């Protein structure tokens, strides 16, 4: 049986369409599988103790041994403090730099450097940010190299370009007529920037900050270098060794204890949930902004 050219082309086309459809199945399978296992294993120890108790003694059940489940309150606190500090460092600087480049720079050449540097910084691998903070703090004070503070500095380096970029884009969406109206009313330039333009750009800025926080919360590589290991006991000051959810997953994955692994899955589930909530929240903020822009 022979096919003419047109039939061959048609069936080749059908075949390729089926292949693209298959590729989406192949792509989705491991991703759905990851979510499924995380939800299943993390969910099996998802209870109140998780949020009230500290890390338990390492233990694997069997031969009549029962293990204490324990909880991950220390990693949770650690992540909150780390991300909070990193936001404290990066958000004001990012917003300030964005205001300088958009509100004062305009079309001028120097104003473009902020965007360029943000582009370059956003390509810095997280492990290099960690090595940088290590190299910097060891010059300053070796005693605080392994601490919550140094970990949060590395996270701030990773958040800074995201916040700066998002702020620049948000400020650019505020129409120029709004600024001119404010100047016409005799409002000074800085008050226009802070009380009118910045407020108008707030949804975009909040979205950027939420996405930056989501990125920082899941980051583990620089914390491997910088946190020390403060997971075993309750957290001390920010100049002492710290802990985070991501660091705890690393400990659970690289140690052979069953109850630690269970808590690591719980930490993974919690991290994924946190990031899910932050993404949904940022989408809601953007939608609200879009509706307001349409004049609703």
């Amino acid at each position, binding site marked *: 049986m022979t096919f003419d050219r047109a039939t061959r082309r048609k069936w080749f086309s059908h075949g390729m*369409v089926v292949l693209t459809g298959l590729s989406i199945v192949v792509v989705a399978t491991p991703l759905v*599988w990851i979510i499924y296992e995380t939800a299943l294993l993390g969910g099996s120890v998802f209870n109140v103790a998780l949020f009230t108790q500290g890390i338990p003694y390492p233990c694997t059940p069997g031969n009549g041994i029962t293990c204490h489940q324990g909880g991950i309150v220390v990693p949770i606190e650690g992540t909150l403090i780390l991300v909070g500090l990193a936001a404290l460092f990066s958000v004001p600087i990012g917003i300030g730099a964005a205001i300088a480049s958009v509100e004062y720079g305009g079309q001028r050449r120097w104003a473009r450097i902020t965007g360029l540097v943000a582009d370059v910084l956003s*390509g810095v691998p997280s492990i290099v940010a960690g090595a940088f903070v290590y190299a910097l703090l*060891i010059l300053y004070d070796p005693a605080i190299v392994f601490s919550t503070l140094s970990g949060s500095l590395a996270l701030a380096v990773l958040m800074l370009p995201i916040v700066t970029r998002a702020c620049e884009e948000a400020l650019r969406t505020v129409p120029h007529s709004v600024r001119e109206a404010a100047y016409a009313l005799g409002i000074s330039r800085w008050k226009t920037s802070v009380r009118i333009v910045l407020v108008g750009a707030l949804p975009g800025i909040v979205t950027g900050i939420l996405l930056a926080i989501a990125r920082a919360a*899941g980051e583990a590589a620089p914390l491997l270098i910088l946190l020390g290991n403060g997971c075993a006991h309750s957290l001390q000051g920010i100049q002492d060794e710290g802990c985070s959810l991501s660091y705890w997953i690393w400990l659970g994955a690289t140690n052979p204890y069953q109850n630690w692994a269970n808590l690591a899955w719980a930490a993974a589930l919690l991290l994924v949930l946190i990031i899910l909530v932050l993404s949904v929240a940022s989408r809601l903020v953007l939608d609200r902004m879009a509706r307001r822009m349409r004049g609703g």
Partner: protein
Amino acid sequence: MNPDNPFPAPSKGATPRKVPRFGDWTFLALVIAATLLVVGVMVTLVVVLLYGSRFTIQSLGFSFLYGTTWNPNNNVYGILPFLDGTLITSAIALFLAVPLGLGAAIFLTQHAPGWLRGPVGQLIELLAAIPSIVYGFWGLIFFVPIERNYTEPFLKTWLGWTGLFGGTPFGVDFLTAGIILSIMAVPTITALSRDAIAAVPRAQKEAAISLGATDWEVTRRAVLPYARSGIVGGIVLGLGRALGETMAVVLTIGNTDKIGTSLFDSGETVSGGIALGFFEPTGPLNISALLEAGLVLLAITLAINLGARTILHRFQSGAAAGAE
């Protein structure tokens, strides 16, 4: 008010001041300080890493870049064993993620029913945000055993003659780490390709259809060439991410510092070598070597990322020009 003059001069307080107010000066100083800080972070990052790696730069020179041994106990540092791991795993990741990610993007934009596009698109964007440590943990617990027991013996039996799959399949090796990286790179490649393909004007497709092209010929000859630079930008950005990735790789590659030739060899990447090296540094020379490895990784990823951004910018300005 003087009735003869309906337009009295404004009172003193309302005149626009020529001299900026105190608040303006302070605010300007603050935002300029913020700009200098952003630029300063970038500059300090490079300077501090250079200064921190001065011992190895001075004592080893270029041999750091082509040395084949990394042995902190004897203070011998050559980065090739790590570079080898980074390049092999990233190559595997691209080899798998480009066709699959692009195929998924084509299906989503061209052939998928409308009700499927939105949810799947959002799922993919969410997956790009899952932390790499979670991918690594999952890979270590669930994927490594599958590799060890099924995939790798299968490949060894049927493709062993290629020489790529020699040695004992332990499961923690270049192949596994590369596959995990490809799983992580797919959402980036799919999302950016999808945006590029969605930006192709309708007329481009309609012209091809009117000439009697089949579905695939429309995609292959009318859509993909138009979206090419956007797709390439997405791929290079995915590559940049794969090169710098640490956690997913460090848990699945086996962490040995020898140069591997088979895909079943365990090894180490630059990022993983840095992360693990800081746990027990043997001395100042070791720390210096780790920081220099960081510089090398920084140089590679920056070159890749700036390349990707140049391509994407050209794509954006090209799309803007096409719309006019």
